[in-house]
């Protein structure tokens, strides 16, 4: 992406030294300034020389990071799998594909369950958003978005609407009507506006607010009815790829993960970044809160999934194997939090024992990358969506 500096040549008095010279029209933070080339040179040198060079900022940042690690390490007295040694190992897992939902013409990018535990909304690269009944595999609604790569979709808590967005930089809410003939696209409401693609969206506890994350590096909370921006969250230094709200009992926070390898925990009311974790070696593709709300898991392009404990303020487990070299695109916990389901770019889904850190099963079936994995609200099944344009329900 280009940085915001354009050059055009005009002739006239310089804003700085007032001499008539060929001017360089420069835009600093989106404001036009007309300086002659000499003043531009001087300004470029001064910008850094206020005792605050990029170098000094970097060294200070490194020392603080080291101090933070030291503080965290002091409390690292035991490993999670050591605490978990006493627990029984899980039995053999038999999980099969129970339903295959076919109907998307192109890669499935995202899906979400309805709270009624049977409906699913999914979105794909070709712009289609489909609402399915998972028990019967019937398609209940279909909408075609005006953009391709619909990377985010979410079901409203009431089950009466779906939100979706992608390369159009917006998040739109479609109320679902019972009348099959009704044109859903006509009732569409544009809620969120970002300056880059929408990577993830989620309703808060009501249909009235939506939380979005975007390729522009920010997350934002919007009011659905008015489309107003209620709060914005700045802190990532690159695209934000995923976000997840804390389970309702534990309060108003959410976690986000992005291409800057960081996972940040935010307070929704103040907009503050409360905690930040940077131990992954590559982009974080997915973040998911632990069902108790005290921890969260991440899946990353570095082929590992990690568990971070919020109260201990550190990473407490890594789920990886030497044989797994492809990135994890999506993670979700089972109802009790004992199992972690992770979808990978090598077309498989690995099931991990969260406490012991071992893998309990590999699920094969998809014929292309698994892009999204979600456990149903009552925990009886989970659904996976893939670039092979199908969704599978496993139980």
């Amino acid at each position, binding site marked *: 992406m280009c940085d915001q500096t354009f050059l055009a040549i005009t002739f006239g008095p310089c804003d700085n030294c007032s001499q008539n010279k060929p001017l360089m029209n420069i835009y600093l933070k989106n404001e036009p300034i007309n300086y002659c080339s000499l003043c531009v040179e001087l300004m470029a040198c001064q910008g850094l020389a206020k005792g605050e060079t990029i170098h000094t900022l970097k060294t200070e940042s490194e020392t603080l990071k080291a101090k933070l690690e030291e503080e965290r390490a002091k409390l690292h007295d035991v490993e999670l799998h050591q605490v*978990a040694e006493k627990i029984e190992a899980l039995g053999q897992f038999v999980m099969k594909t129970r339903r295959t939902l076919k109907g998307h013409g192109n890669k499935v990018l995202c899906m979400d369950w309805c709270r009624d535990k049977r409906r699913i909304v999914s979105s794909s690269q070709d712009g289609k958003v489909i609402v399915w009944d998972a028990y019967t595999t019937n398609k209940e609604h279909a909408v075609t978005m005006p953009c391709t790569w619909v990377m985010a979709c979410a079901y409203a808590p009431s089950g009466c609407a779906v939100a979706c967005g992608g390369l159009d930089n917006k998040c739109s809410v479609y109320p679902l009507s019972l009348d099959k003939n009704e044109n859903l696209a006509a009732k569409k409401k544009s809620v969120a506006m970002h300056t880059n693609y929408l990577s993830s969206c989620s309703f808060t506890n009501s249909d009235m607010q939506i939380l979005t994350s975007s390729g522009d590096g920010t997350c934002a909370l919007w009011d659905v009815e008015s489309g107003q921006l209620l709060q914005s969250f700045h802190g990532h230094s690159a695209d934000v790829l995923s976000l997840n709200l804390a389970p309702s009992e534990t309060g108003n926070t959410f976690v986000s993960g992005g291409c800057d390898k960081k996972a940040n925990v935010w307070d929704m009311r103040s907009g503050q970044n409360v905690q930040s974790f940077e131990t992954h070696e590559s982009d974080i593709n997915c973040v998911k809160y632990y069902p108790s709300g005290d921890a969260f898991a991440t899946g990353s392009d570095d082929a590992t999934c990690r568990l971070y404990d919020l109260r201990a303020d550190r990473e407490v487990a890594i789920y990886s194997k030497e044989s797994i070299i492809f990135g994890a695109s999506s993670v979700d916990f089972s109802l009790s939090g004992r199992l972690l389901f992770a979808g990978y770019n090598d077309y498989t889904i690995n099931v991990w024992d969260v406490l012991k850190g071992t893998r309990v099963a590999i699920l094969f079936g998809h014929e292309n990358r698994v892009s999204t994995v979600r456990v149903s609200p009552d925990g009886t099944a989970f659904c996976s969506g893939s670039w092979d344009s199908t969704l599978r329900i496993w139980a």
Partner: protein
Amino acid sequence: MARDMSDKDILKMELEQLQKEVKNTREPVSKTTKEIYEWVEAQAAEDPLIKGVPEDKNPFKEKGGCIITCDFLWQN
């Protein structure tokens, strides 16, 4: 927006964030992981994906069986 910020601004933002975080309170891992483990133990009994769901109660079970209807012609 992260893409519009200069390197210096991004570093400043990170620095302020780190200064705040160093002051966070933390609990020892032994205590927090024990709580996680206890929470899971309490919930695991009810987790359908761990304990399994009997086939007749499972809404996702295979729609099984075919019923073959045929007419028998008895001929003596």
